[in-house]
């Protein structure tokens, strides 16, 4: 039996080698991009793969200022923060109402929200665009905040409702007996108790909003978010790879930072979704 164990251990150690190669292929393109961003245009043409020996940060400055990434960056930050705050507030309201207050008709409301989970933006692209025009929300950052909130909301409401439904009901009943109003219960109990779920939703929705390109292309046309700006930069600077690479690094940096800081929440958020279905 011990022999079987050691043989399995040895086998796993051998398998680790191809897995390490695969891991390398998962990070190499990212490393290549950072390395290219640090090279001069000439340096890149002469040697694409070698380490940037005379590292320069000029590309970052140029991408930030001349290519207007600073402006796109601001748009992305404003829209992402606005949409995430709206999503957290509205889904916490709705989760409280659907899981705790359970008013007449709440089951139907929950069903409508679940059904809308299955309507991706592509399916309603044409009518959605017309709705945005009719409401005069095209070309405004507020319009994009509303669009993001509308499209990422069903999942958030679903998660908050499921989270609040697992809280012990005595909590709510005891607060009611103590004479707390229903709004006070939301503010003093539901919001603080919901923190773990709200944190997960905050992170995931930040990723979704920051990374989106389709809704942003549709809603903001003169202004641009960062991802639309990067897509345009790719078209404009096909020959200046280091500049494009610098733009990519700037646009990805906030997300990579969030991944490093909140890796545990991101991983568990996805895992919870999978196991609970």
């Amino acid at each position: 039996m011990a022999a079987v164990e050691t043989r399995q251990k040895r086998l796993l150690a051998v398998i680790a080698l191809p897995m390490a190669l695969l891991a390398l292929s998962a990070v190499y393109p990212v490393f290549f991009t950072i390395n290219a961003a640090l090279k001069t245009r000439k340096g890149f043409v002469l040697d694409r793969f070698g380490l940037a020996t005379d590292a320069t940060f000029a590309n970052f400055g140029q991408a930030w200022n001349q290519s207007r990434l600073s402006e796109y960056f601001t748009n992305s930050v404003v829209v992402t923060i606005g949409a995430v705050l709206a999503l957290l507030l509205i889904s916490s309201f709705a989760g409280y109402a659907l899981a705790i207050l359970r008013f007449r008709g709440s089951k139907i409301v929950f069903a409508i929200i679940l059904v809308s989970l299955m309507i991706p933006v592509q399916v309603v692209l044409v009518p959605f665009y017309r709705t945005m025009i009719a409401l005069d929300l095209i070309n405004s950052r507020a319009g994009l905040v509303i669009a993001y909130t509308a499209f990422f909301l069903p999942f958030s409401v679903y998660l908050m409702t499921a989270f609040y439904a697992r809280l012990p009901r005595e909590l709510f009943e005891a607060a009611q007996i103590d004479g707390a109003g229903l709004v006070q219960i939301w503010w003093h109990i539901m919001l603080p108790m919901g923190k773990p779920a709200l944190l997960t939703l905050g992170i995931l929705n930040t990723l979704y909003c920051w990374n989106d390109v389709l809704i942003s292309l549709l809603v903001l046309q003169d202004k641009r978010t960062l991802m639309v700006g990067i897509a345009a930069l790719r078209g404009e600077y096909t020959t200046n790879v280091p500049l494009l690479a610098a733009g990519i690094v700037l646009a990805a940096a906030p997300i990579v930072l969030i991944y490093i800081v909140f890796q545990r929440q991101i991983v568990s958020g996805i895992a919870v979704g999978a196991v609970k279905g």
Partner: protein
Amino acid sequence: MTERQPSAARRRFLGDNPERLGWLFVVPALALVIIFRIVPLIWGFGTSFTDYNGMVAPRFIGLANYASLTHDPVFMDSIVNMLILLATLPIWIGLPLVLAILIHQGVPGGKLFRAVYFFPAVLSSVIVGAIFNMLLRYDGSFNAMLKGIGLSPVDWLGNSSTALFSLIAVQLWATFGMSLLIFLAGLSTVPSDMLEAAKLDGAKLMATWWYIVIPSIRPIIEFAAVVTTIGMLTSMFGLIYVLTAGGPGTSTTLPEFLIWLEQGRMNRPGYASAISMVLFAMMAGLAFIQIRIMSRNASL
């Protein structure tokens, strides 16, 4: 409660009636969902049966839009491309499944592998597309590397026989870590004494996988297959937009990208809605399967 008590009238309006406050609290969510998803879906469904061109009042034409879809070479190409993409599903499941089992069984460095494999999944499709555009273009770095080792360069993105596979490979690179996490979460619920018992029996590693590990996480595998398929139908836009723009020709045009092109032309919303409804029908079918899997698992 330290703050000032609200006036009795205000409290009666907001605070004491669960029925009224419940409705008040779901109104924002319900309104957004109805205005931006449900009503547009109904509008699109209705419009798909008309000859609406965006200007003249629409006329009911029955299934004519759907009939002309079958004669539209661009639409048919997009369906063929989608079927090719769907046919690669076993790789999208098999690769992360094998890696997840290996990590779960204690490959050295497993935690690091998990973090690294998942990393590309947090990047935006635009970032991934822009990176691989630098690498895979004809004058890009991948071909420079091939030339370096004496192989002839390939126009990965510009050749209609390789563009779709390049697109699929890049999307697989970017997202396999997501399924890996899902499988790892599933494996962590398998009682470890089940695995230990298999080892005591002297069962071979492969046999352990096939007869014990994989059956025990079958619901998770089914769930991942449905989620991956939904992703194939609706999460490829950003990558197509940056990497190939649907080309060359129609070789990387998928239905969701075709809807975007039709929306941009603005001149036949009726026809564009019919394409949308085809995509929605597929989504609804998948959702139906997903709900069945979920309810079956709930009764286990």
